[in-house]
């Protein structure tokens, strides 16, 4: 009996907040708009708190790996050390202090850029293996589409924009904007329908992500 009451209370709160936020899009009343902004500010605060909780959880997981000397514990130790150093510096000097910006410009930015470069090499190697080892229709199709898109995107050699190069660019645009965009629109339509259905289910208390 008590559980039923609690769940009903939670569902009523979720339904009321959702309706007020949704109503703010359609009704231009100061009370409704003000209440919607208030709810949004609470949501932002909760999201920030959730980010802190996630940060603590991440640190705890890696600390456990270090304490148990699991595989890769050294990397976890480096992560915890970097976290502590950055956190202490940002807390004491501020996130926009020169030392914090130095860490970003000279550590984080090059490292993440290097990871992206490695990923490009890895993708290229994967493509090489696909066309070298698999001899079927799909590998052939992959090879043709990739070459066409690359040739249409890459700068032309020789310093000329001949008719062939123009044709390649048109072919590339046709592949990208017809085939790829058509598939992307289908995906976006599915995502929109799914988001709408999910929102309605939450508003009708069918889905209760806050607990039943």
């Amino acid at each position, binding site marked *: 009996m008590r559980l039923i009451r609690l769940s009903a209370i939670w569902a009523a709160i979720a339904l009321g907040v959702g309706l007020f936020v949704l109503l*703010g*899009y359609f009704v231009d009343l100061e009370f409704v*708009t003000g209440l*919607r*902004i208030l709810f*949004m*500010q609470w949501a*932002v*605060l909760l*999201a*920030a708190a959730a980010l802190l909780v996630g940060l603590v959880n991440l640190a705890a997981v890696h600390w456990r790996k270090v304490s148990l000397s699991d595989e890769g514990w050294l990397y976890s130790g480096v992560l915890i050390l970097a976290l502590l150093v950055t956190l202490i510096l940002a807390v004491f000097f501020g*996130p*926009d202090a020169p030392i*914090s*910006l130095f860490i*970003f*410009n000279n550590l*984080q*930015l090059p*490292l*993440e*850029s290097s*990871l*992206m*470069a490695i990923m490009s*090499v890895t993708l*290229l*190697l994967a*493509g*090489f*293996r*696909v*066309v*070298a*080892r*698999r*001899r079927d229709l799909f590998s052939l199709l992959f*090879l043709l589409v*990739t*070459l066409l898109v*690359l040739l249409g*995107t*890459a*700068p*032309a*050699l*020789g*310093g000329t*924009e001949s008719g062939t190069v*123009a044709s390649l*660019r048109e072919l590339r645009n046709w592949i*990208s*904007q017809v085939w*790829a*965009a058509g598939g*992307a*629109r289908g*995906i*976006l339509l599915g*995502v929109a329908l799914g988001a709408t259905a999910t929102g309605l289910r939450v508003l009708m208390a069918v889905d209760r992500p806050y607990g039943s």
Partner: protein
Amino acid sequence: MAEIQCPNCGKPNPDTAETCQHCGEPLGSGSDWMNEIQEQADGMAPGPGGSSPFAPVEPSEVEQPAEENGGLAEGEVPEWLQRIRAKQAADEGGGDDFSALRPGFSDEQDQEAEQGLETVEGRGPVGGVGPGGKDQEPADRAAEPEDIRAGFGFGSDSDPDYAPYEKSAEPDTGIPSWLAQSDEPQPPAGAQPAGGTESDQPEGGLPHVPALLGEQPVGLSAEELGVPDWLGEVEQSEEGGEETLKGRRPAAAAPPDLERATLPNWLEAMRPVDTFRSVVQIDAEDDQTIESIGPLAGLRGVLMAEPVVAMPRTSTVGAMQLEVSERQYAQAELLQQLITEEESSEPAAPRRRTRLAIFRWAIAAVTVVAAALPVLTGAPSFALPGLEPKELGALFDLVDRLPPDRPALFVFDYDPGNTGELDAVAGALLDQVMGRGLPVASVSTRPTGAPQALYTMHRYASRHGYVEGSDMVHLGYLSGGPAAVQLFASNPRGAILKGFALPEEMKSAGQTAWDSPTLERVSSLSDFSIVAVITAGSETARLWVEQAGSALGETPLVMVLSAAAEPLVRPYYEASQPQIDGILTGLPAAVAYEQRNGRFGLALDRWNGFGAGMLAAELVLLAGAGYGLVRWVMARREA
């Protein structure tokens, strides 16, 4: 000088000799082990009768324990033993007539039995296993059953025909008459065989059964023969007493002289111990079947194996089913596995092929060299794009028409990993905006977005003389995801309270980013002149379109994208009612934008490296296709 007769060859030897001079057999009196036993016996206390345990047993001593210890009652003594005792009593009394003790035996049979016994006695010491352990001669053994039969009352010492076998009147056949009579199939009428009464025998009884009882094996004890203890003692005493009466050496240790009627070992092993038939019906020899198979093939009268084999009976297979628990079964399995593993030879570890990641390193080297070569050497050089995307002109005109008194908002929603591409693409647009002198503000929904914006904008700010706080300002990190974007679109000042990297004078004055000249007239998202979202992910682009689109009003929303995000964002731009007012995608479009803008920046700097890298990628893929084709052709040739 006394002589010692050799127990082996029977020839005389001096009493001082320890071994026989003729055959070398150790003489009994001289054996060390015999002397030791004798010394031990001498040292032992005498028995109840005052004699040594190894002293010859007198008949009186044999009977005495039975009588003193209560032994057997008179009524419990078997008949054959009673006859023996009566015979002994008659011997002591000098009487020779045992006919009363042997009903059913004729005088002739008695005489012949006595003759057989005389034969045994007349050849000297009773043979048998001598000190040396040698067997007796076959001729001596032939008389042994008769000796035993005499003990059972078939012969007498007082018979007149008692004589050694060599002196017998029937030496030609070698078989005494009494033995010939004993070989007859039917016993004498009225004769009662020792070992049982007539009623105990089956009809058509076995004629050899009494003989087997009398043929006690040499050296076998009563226990081995299955004879009761009391009977064995009595028999030994009886024999000793009989020999003593005849003035001879006690024959307790003297084995019978006949060869034991033994079965071959293999036949004895096959003999059924517990026969399924209580009474063995032995047919006449002619009626007995001849075994046709097996090791007994050709023999007549053997026990048939077929009834045992073919007789219906309960199968023992499956009758014993072990009740095994799962744990025991698992342990048994484990044990079996261990044994199997021990028995099985461990295969040699395959030799690991030292394989260098040639292709991986080669592709990485090609890519790096291709990207770095134009930067280091300036070659190869690629032509600037002669064609520009169709949306590029619209975007350029849009930016060119922006009101100069309203700030432009740049949203840096990409990770530092995408800096190489998006810095150059965003730089082209940023360069145009700053070139027009529009105030610029930045915000990000990513934690690294604020320093990323500072890093990117600083390059173009220095080019155009922008001052932090007055010409451009950074709002910083907008935490909260979609809700934060919704809140920022509705109430920017409520979503971001302070700002990021503000000048020291503003910090010291306690001012926020909203107090800067750039944003002092901004209270909503529509107060910006343009909102440009720089992102590498379609999700972020969709987030800003959906959450902030309704709050933009007449403010254009522009997307600066990486090439990978273009297909998923372009539908917002190419829709019948576009939700995006401009789109700038990829490095080629950025170079074209810079060309149109007339000022080159990062996009042009990275153009040659980008082109060389793309060309290297194409060549690598073509090389992979060629390598696969060559392998396929070679494989077909080998096949």
